[in-house]
């Protein structure tokens, strides 16, 4: 009996001690910044938007946020800071929908009070989705987002956190790797090549007749924009919102067009723009009329993702007020882009056999 008691005590004590050590290491290192801002000197592996954005939004110092889908990943916060004079936090979410961006911004406002500016990358793909649509791939787990302390056990006693983040961070720190460059956070462009050699799309079919926006879809756009952008702008009138439509490539616009949805998407944008421009603290930019960029496939790695020079150009244009739309220029803008994209000679640009795209 004593033997069994000793055996149990030994097994349970060592198990609990091991778990306590793991929890302590994860809590101290805090690789997802759930409890505090990144510790100075630690070599964090800052490569996960899903797990790190929420912690960064809650616990780091900033007065402006640059946010959006993967279209915004190649921005550099330092460039934005230099141009606009804010202290900028860049927190893009791959595959994010507007509701997810809204939730992130709410966390930012909740923890930082009034922000000076928000740079909100708006994807064409996100205009016609349900206002509450969230994609699991870009939603951080509850234990990182909620305020229930007991739920943190999922974070503290987590093998993946330990092996993929905490230990590599500590080992790299011991090896003297130094702090990561936060300006590189989620920038992926350095590893990839661009242009026709990396990406080609066969734009061979003529566009069919294009469908227009239905009344129900118009309502979907209104609800989405009202809940996820306008409501924030109304609640925070001191914050300047730079909402910008990101430039998909001509190949992506062709793909939308062959499905007969190009006109519909442009009408959805018009609906969104009309709504957004009713709010005085929103500035609205659309890079869909940057035809030179969009029609040059060398700027893209696939149908939607462009190189960092395009991100840089967008920042400079926004600073200079280029591609900005106002109520009085809205109609002319839509006439220009619809005339251009609906009559564009796609075959001449991409009438070649090639890889498909997403």
């Amino acid at each position, binding site marked *: *009996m004593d*033997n*069994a*008691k000793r*055996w*149990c005590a*030994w*097994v*349970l004590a*060592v*198990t609990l001690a*091991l*778990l306590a050590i*793991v929890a302590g290491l994860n809590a101290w290192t805090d690789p997802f910044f759930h409890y505090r801002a990144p510790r100075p000197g630690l070599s964090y592996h800052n490569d996960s938007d899903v797990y790190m954005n929420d912690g960064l939004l809650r616990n780091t110092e900033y007065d402006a946020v640059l946010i959006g889908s993967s279209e915004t990943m190649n921005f550099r916060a330092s460039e934005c800071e230099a141009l606009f004079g804010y202290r900028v936090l860049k927190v893009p979410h791959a595959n994010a929908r507007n509701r997810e961006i809204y939730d992130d911004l709410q966390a930012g406002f909740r923890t930082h009070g009034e922000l000076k500016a928000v740079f909100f990358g708006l994807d064409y793909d996100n205009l016609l989705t349900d206002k509450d649509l969230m994609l699991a791939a870009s939603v951080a*787990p509850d*234990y990182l987002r909620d305020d229930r302390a007991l739920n943190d*056990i*999922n*974070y503290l*006693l*987590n*093998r*993946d956190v*330990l*092996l*993929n983040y905490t*230990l*590599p961070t500590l*080992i790299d720190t011991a090896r003297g790797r130094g702090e990561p460059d936060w300006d590189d956070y989620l920038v992926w462009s350095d590893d990839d090549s661009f242009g026709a050699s990396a990406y080609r799309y066969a734009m061979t079919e003529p566009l069919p007749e294009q469908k227009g926006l239905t009344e129900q879809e118009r309502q979907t756009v209104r609800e989405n924009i009202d809940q996820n952008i306008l409501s924030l702008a109304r609640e925070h009138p001191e914050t300047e919102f730079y909402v910008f439509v990101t430039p998909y490539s001509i190949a992506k616009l062709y793909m939308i067009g062959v499905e007969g949805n190009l006109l519909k998407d442009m009408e959805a944008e018009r609906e969104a723009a009309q709504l957004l421009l009713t709010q005085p603290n929103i500035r609205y930019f659309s890079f869909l009329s940057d035809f030179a960029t969009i029609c040059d496939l060398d700027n893209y790695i696939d149908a939607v993702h462009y190189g960092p020079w395009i991100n840089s150009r967008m920042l400079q244009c926004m600073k200079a007020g280029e591609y900005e739309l106002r109520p009085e220029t809205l109609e002319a803008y839509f006439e220009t882009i619809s005339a251009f994209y609906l009559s564009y000679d796609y075959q001449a640009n991409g009438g070649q056999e090639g890889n498909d795209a997403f």
Partner: protein
Amino acid sequence: MLFNSYIFIFLFLPLALAGYFLLNRLGRNKLAQAFLIGMSLWFYAYFNLSYLPIICLSILGNYLISRLLNRQGLEQKWRKLLLALGILANVAAIGYYKYFDFFLSNLNALFHADFSLRHIVLPLGISFFTFQQISYLVDSYRGETGDYGFLEYALFVSFFPQLVAGPIVLHSEMIPQFRDPELRRFDWGSFAHGLFLFSVGLGKKVLLADVLGQAVDYGYAGLDRLYALSSLDVILVSLCYTFQIYFDFSGYCDMATGICRMFHMRLPQNFDSPYRAVSISDYWRRWHMSLGRFLRTYIYFPLGGSRKGTVRTYLNTMAIFLVSGIWHGANWTFILWGALHGLLSCLTRAVDRWWSRWNDWVRRILTFLTINGLFVLFRADSVMTAVRYLVRMMRLESFTLDRQILAFFDTAELQFLEYLFPALSRLPAQIPGLHLFLFLIGSFLIVMFGKNTWQMAEKLSAGRGLATLALLSCSILALSGVHIFLYFNF
């Protein structure tokens, strides 16, 4: 509540053990039983509060019927009627919750009707506690049950280790244990073995089944996915599922057995290394043994078993396998799966002499491959989908490996090793699918050569202590995420 959850391991289980043994130590045996019933109902309701009235009514109703069946002086015809009513009520309950929509959808398909489906939420474990109570009613009718009190009966049905995924226990196995004063005392030896069994089961579930399960869910994500996979991918996914379902279900049973040992009690064996079977009949003597026992005792033998000639034997065999198929789920896939197992069992019986002359390993591998093929039917959404998967497998027309499937086996441990020793990361590039194949080969070796938990003696050694703490720590650290036990919905 899941066994593999923080709340269960760090709160529920210690609380249940402490409360139960403390009350018994104070001589409050009835209160200890009531406490355990209360804890079991909490365990059950944690999944969904709306399940609670269903199980409570089921326990109450069956207990009342069994009391009437045990009543002295009740005429035989009334007892028979009462038993029939009791069984019918149980079957009606399971029929409504589990099969009503299936019935309606078949009516719609057959008669081009348009009955709207109810989309009824299936109460977890209903198949288990319903069968358990049917067996109790039959035993009551036969006069084989004792004069059990309500608390004893309620605890027999609701005792949380076996409540939602079995094994299907008999009153004669559990109630005498509840009554035994010796077993009401905490026992360190029993607790130690229970802790070991629990850690083995937890390891099977979270370190093996859940990793395999990711590839399975991906591979079975519809026909579009199937068309994107090669024949080799589909074969590998089918093997992943065969291993997953075993590690998942037997892992659950090991945990249940371990928890029971912690309570100084025992559950019956439910698995006996089933993939070592040398025929389909042998497989069914080793797989989900408590279900097989139920079907034999309460259906096969009353139908005459093998005593009424060859044809009746085959018919009786088919009957129990069809019931087994239906029991597993409301879909033609399960019914066909049961029927094919039945046919193969009959075939085994017919050619037993000839088959037994073959080499054991040849028979074992052929049996394993057959089981693997039939599990495609078990996992697929429809019979047509299963057929497409099987055709894809057997055509052997392409042998590329899907990168996403491979990625599921690139576990955190392997990634960390590759981080420490970067040269290791070149291996998977040189040998495509290395991690996946190692995982499958490891699984195969475990199921074919590893001792099962019933073959492991109750001993205390440093080696076992190390194994227990290693499995427990690694498994607890791997808990984060979503895990679903496959056998909850049967």
